[in-house]
């Protein structure tokens, strides 16, 4: 069993999870798609990815593998193969889908089998997806997967915190499913095709920080925790879309799926000094301290750290080891239960007033 709250509770834990971008292809054409996916995208090489997952053992494995895309269910056999390997070592499989298959009255057999092989299906639901697939068809798919005995959740997007669409869809989901379908609710970002959305272009830019140690310079990054196998085989230490799309950032580049293994990647995620500092204090503080500068964009501040050729040495020594240790210990001690961790995550990375919906069903 893998609930949404289990996953969110572990999201900030280094190497607790592994994200696999199964494909960049997707048959839907959602106007906000962060990955700009079309049916012309590339697939992750099966052989090297399977070999990588074969390297998991019961003693050394991610707790969760998250299959994403594009649309991972365009490759149902690959999903089944990954799931089989994960199940053998007790790694749980999460899959994020746009539910393209729910356009048909019945779920096609290969996809049905793939869904039976995973532990948790997360489905996207927002006004853009609803232009591709009706809400009723989304509910049909959720019903079908719940009936398989699987955990499901929804990833719902609105324009902003006050978007009435969110209230409407949350009411609909809770009326239909009670507390059986937890929801992670956040806002559309100007990434991928989302860059073209007029409503996002009108948003005022975030405040540019002042020089020196600005008020928001301490801002730990929880995303530099789970590695990502990108569809081109690169393995990155972060799921930032520009990096996943191919932007070369030295300190976030961990290797290639064909030439490394889980043990090495896990080790790097856990001990790499730059990643540890990013998780402890975030990129803005590191930028200010090392001279690569403050950036209006949180993630660009991180990317710019690699402007320094000696990024590993310089950034890695910004936070003395004892302080780093105390900060990491604080992070672990802060919450004594998974629901609090999950709600904290949903609150910070999603829409605060709906954060509690991430733990429904527990």
């Amino acid at each position, binding site marked *: 069993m893998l609930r949404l709250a289990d996953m969110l509770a572990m999201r900030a834990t280094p190497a607790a999870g592994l994200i696999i971008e199964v494909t960049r292809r997707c048959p839907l054409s959602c106007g906000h*798609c962060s990955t700009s996916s079309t049916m012309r995208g590339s697939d992750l090489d099966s052989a090297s990815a399977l070999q990588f997952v074969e390297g998991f053992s019961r003693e050394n494995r991610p707790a969760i593998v998250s299959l994403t895309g594009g649309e991972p269910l365009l490759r149902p056999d690959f999903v089944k193969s990954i799931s089989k390997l994960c199940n053998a070592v007790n790694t749980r499989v999460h899959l*994020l889908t746009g539910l393209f298959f729910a356009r048909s009255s019945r779920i096609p057999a290969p996809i049905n089998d793939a869904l039976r092989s995973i532990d948790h299906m997360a489905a996207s639901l927002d006004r853009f997806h609803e232009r591709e697939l009706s809400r009723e068809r989304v509910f049909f798919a959720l019903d079908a997967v719940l009936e398989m005995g699987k955990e499901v959740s929804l*990833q719902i997007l609105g324009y902003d915190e006050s978007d009435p669409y969110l209230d409407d869809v949350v009411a609909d989901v809770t009326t239909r499913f009670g507390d059986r379908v937890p929801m992670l609710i956040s806002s559309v970002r100007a990434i991928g095709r989302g860059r073209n959305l007029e409503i996002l272009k009108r948003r005022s830019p975030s405040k540019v920080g002042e020089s020196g140690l600005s008020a928001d310079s301490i801002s*730990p990054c929880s995303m530099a925790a789970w590695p990502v196998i990108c569809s081109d085989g690169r393995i990155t230490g972060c799921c930032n879309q520009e990096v996943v799309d191919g932007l070369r950032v030295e300190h976030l580049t961990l290797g290639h799926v064909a030439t490394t293994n889980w043990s090495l990647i896990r080790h790097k995620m856990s001990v790499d000094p730059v990643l540890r500092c990013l998780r402890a204090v975030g990129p803005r503080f590191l930028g200010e301290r090392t001279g690569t500068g403050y950036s209006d964009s949180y993630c660009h501040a991180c990317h710019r750290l690699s402007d320094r050729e000696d990024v590993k040495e310089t950034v890695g020594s910004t936070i003395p080891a004892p302080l780093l240790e105390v900060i990491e210990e604080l992070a672990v001690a802060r919450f004594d239960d998974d629901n609090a961790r999950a709600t904290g995550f949903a609150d910070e990375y999603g829409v605060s007033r709906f954060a509690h919906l991430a733990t429904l069903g527990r």
Partner: protein
Amino acid sequence: MADDPKEIAKIGDALARPAIRKMFAMDPIGALERAGVNVSKVPEATLDLLASLQPWEVEVLGRVAELAKSKGIQTMKGDHVGVIIH
């Protein structure tokens, strides 16, 4: 580090308060005790480590603790999308 996570969490809560941080600079143990930390439950090595921190390090630790207290340790909205957004 401490064996008792609750006491460590209390240390975080204490250092999240700017007034305690000021006191901490002059009297680390006294400041923690005044903030309700049971220092007898905190290993000596941890106390030594805390007491050895430079003022700027205490400030950084305190800021992280403030964020941890108010929002959880996850504190910044980046444009990460891999798992959060399809």
